[in-house]
């Protein structure tokens, strides 16, 4: 019974924790411009994150060591450093976007300018990362993030004509009023949002924090293969809600308030309350995850003591990196740079950095020294290699598409 509860809790937190500011903004923006014609990218992205999260979770459970810990040892300091710099830069950008997202959610709830909330959020994130237990942090925000199911309820309540929506999802094509290059730019951005690097680093480091062992593999796989796809359905619901309400009116999503409008249209004030709880939980939870991920990756690369499972005094350098990241993220936002723009760039640069994250994981997951009989099987290698090709193509295409389309304008 206890095991079943652990599995159920893991799945629920995986669903609620799947969506972050990048998913919220990108899916709503895509839904408002392309309807459901890019749903296939979410499917491809979710399968990809499942493949690599399972690998990195397996590495953590079997070896008892997290991904970056092994990347440097297995691939050498230079490759490790390249992976560290690429992934950490994107994760830090994502942390900045998440702090901005929390501030924007609080602005919607209170009408206080988001810039006034930014320092408060930065301090709160740091306090939570310093004081709150890892399991409480992960489960609390993951469960609260389930409030985003309100998007699926809103889609049902709006009572759309399902035929065209389903047809658009099943027969994807570039809408007549859009350029092909813009369509592919958003495809790459959605892919980057779904496969954002911090998710696997956080997942594997979290496994070490929670002291996973080989007997945790079944629970870990249930979290990944049930929780992540159901979380992906939330992304689809966000896009569908925008496609139903915003697209017919020619509204393109550029603010978090616009993301919430379809839910308010369908469900009124109660819907707004739930959506704001969901926004807050999703962005605050992701801010904690990205903040920790920056600390994890730096500390693991340099071989420092890390994690919340040891007293802060014994992992002082890890906590210093986390603190400095929070301060720097707040500092960037206080320059009045638009958090939504930071989000848009973070998902595109995520796509750019994907090979630096996923190639080392594939190599480590094939090493019997660490994994023994738990190394990748044929299916994992076929899928992993196929996805490596896809992430390389997405990475190479990201910047040219951004330039040609004027960042999707």
């Amino acid at each position, binding site marked *: 019974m206890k095991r079943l509860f652990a599995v159920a809790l893991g799945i629920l937190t995986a669903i609620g924790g799947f969506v972050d500011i990048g998913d919220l903004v990108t899916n709503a923006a895509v839904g408002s411009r392309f309807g459901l014609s890019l749903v296939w990218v979410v499917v491809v992205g979710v399968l990809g994150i499942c493949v690599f999260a399972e690998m990195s979770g397996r590495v953590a459970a079997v070896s008892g060591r997290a991904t970056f810990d092994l990347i440097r040892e297995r691939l050498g300091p230079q490759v490790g450093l390249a992976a560290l710099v690429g992934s950490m830069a994107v994760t830090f950008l994502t942390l900045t976007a998440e702090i901005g997202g929390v501030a924007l959610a609080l602005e919607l709830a209170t*009408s206080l300018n988001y810039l006034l909330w930014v320092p408060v959020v930065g301090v709160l994130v740091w306090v939570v990362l310093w004081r709150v237990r890892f399991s409480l942090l992960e489960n609390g925000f993951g469960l609260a993030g389930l409030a985003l199911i309100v998007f699926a309820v809103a889609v049902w309540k709006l009572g759309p004509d399902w035929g065209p929506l389903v047809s658009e999802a099943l027969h994807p094509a570039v809408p007549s009023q859009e350029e092909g290059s813009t369509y592919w730019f958003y495809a790459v951005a959605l892919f980057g949002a779904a496969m954002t690097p911090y998710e696997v680093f956080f997942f594997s480091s979290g496994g070490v924090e929670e002291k996973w062992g080989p007997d945790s593999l079944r629970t870990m796989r249930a979290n990944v293969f049930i929780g992540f796809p159901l979380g992906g359905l939330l992304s689809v619901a966000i896009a569908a809600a925008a496609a139903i309400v915003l697209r017919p*009116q020619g509204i393109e999503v550029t603010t978090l308030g616009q993301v919430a409008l379809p839910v308010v249209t369908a469900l009124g*004030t109660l819907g707004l309350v739930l959506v704001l709880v969901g926004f807050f939980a999703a962005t605050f939870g992701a801010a904690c995850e990205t903040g920790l991920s920056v600390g994890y990756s730096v500390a693991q690369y340099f071989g420092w003591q890390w994690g919340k499972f040891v007293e802060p005094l014994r992992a002082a350098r890890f906590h210093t990196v986390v603190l400095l990241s929070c301060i720097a993220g707040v500092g960037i936002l206080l320059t009045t740079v638009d958090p939504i723009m930071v989000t848009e760039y973070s998902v595109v640069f995520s796509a750019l950095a994907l090979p630096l994250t996923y190639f080392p994981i594939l190599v480590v997951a094939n090493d019997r020294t660490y994994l023994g009989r738990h190394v990748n099987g044929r299916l994992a290698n076929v899928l992993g290699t196929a996805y490596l090709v896809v992430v390389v193509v997405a990475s190479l295409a990201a910047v040219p598409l951004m330039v040609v389309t*004027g960042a999707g304008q």
Partner: protein
Amino acid sequence: MSRAGHRRPLAGRRSLGTTAAVVAALVTTGCTSDPTAVYRDSAVAVLEATLSEARTAELAGRLWVADRSPHAMAVVVVAESETGVGGETSWFEEQQPPNRASDPVRGRTVDALDGASSAVQAVRISLDRFDRPGTRAALDELRSACSDLESLAEELG
């Protein structure tokens, strides 16, 4: 503390976006394109971006008037739209028309943008006063301004 008086720095962001769109048009079509056509395309891009902002304000305002949304959210969304519309309008007004033949495009576009800008401002003012009848009237004006933007974008596009 009211949201009025605080403006998100979206104006800069939207103008940046429109600039990026125009630069992208130049990159993809080459710098040898007809400057009149490029100017007209930038007018259409600005009209469409403004229409998106104005319709957002209209939707948020109508949800509040119908008592389906709290005042705080309507104020935030409308203020953001106002900033967005203002940014688009000032960006386009600063652009130099490539020749005299483009002056009518400029004049009609600026008129439509100014109309939308005033209409969104009127919605924000009524909203800040908790004035539902006033907001309803301003929203009707905004709807008319949106129709003007839409028809001009279709004509020029």
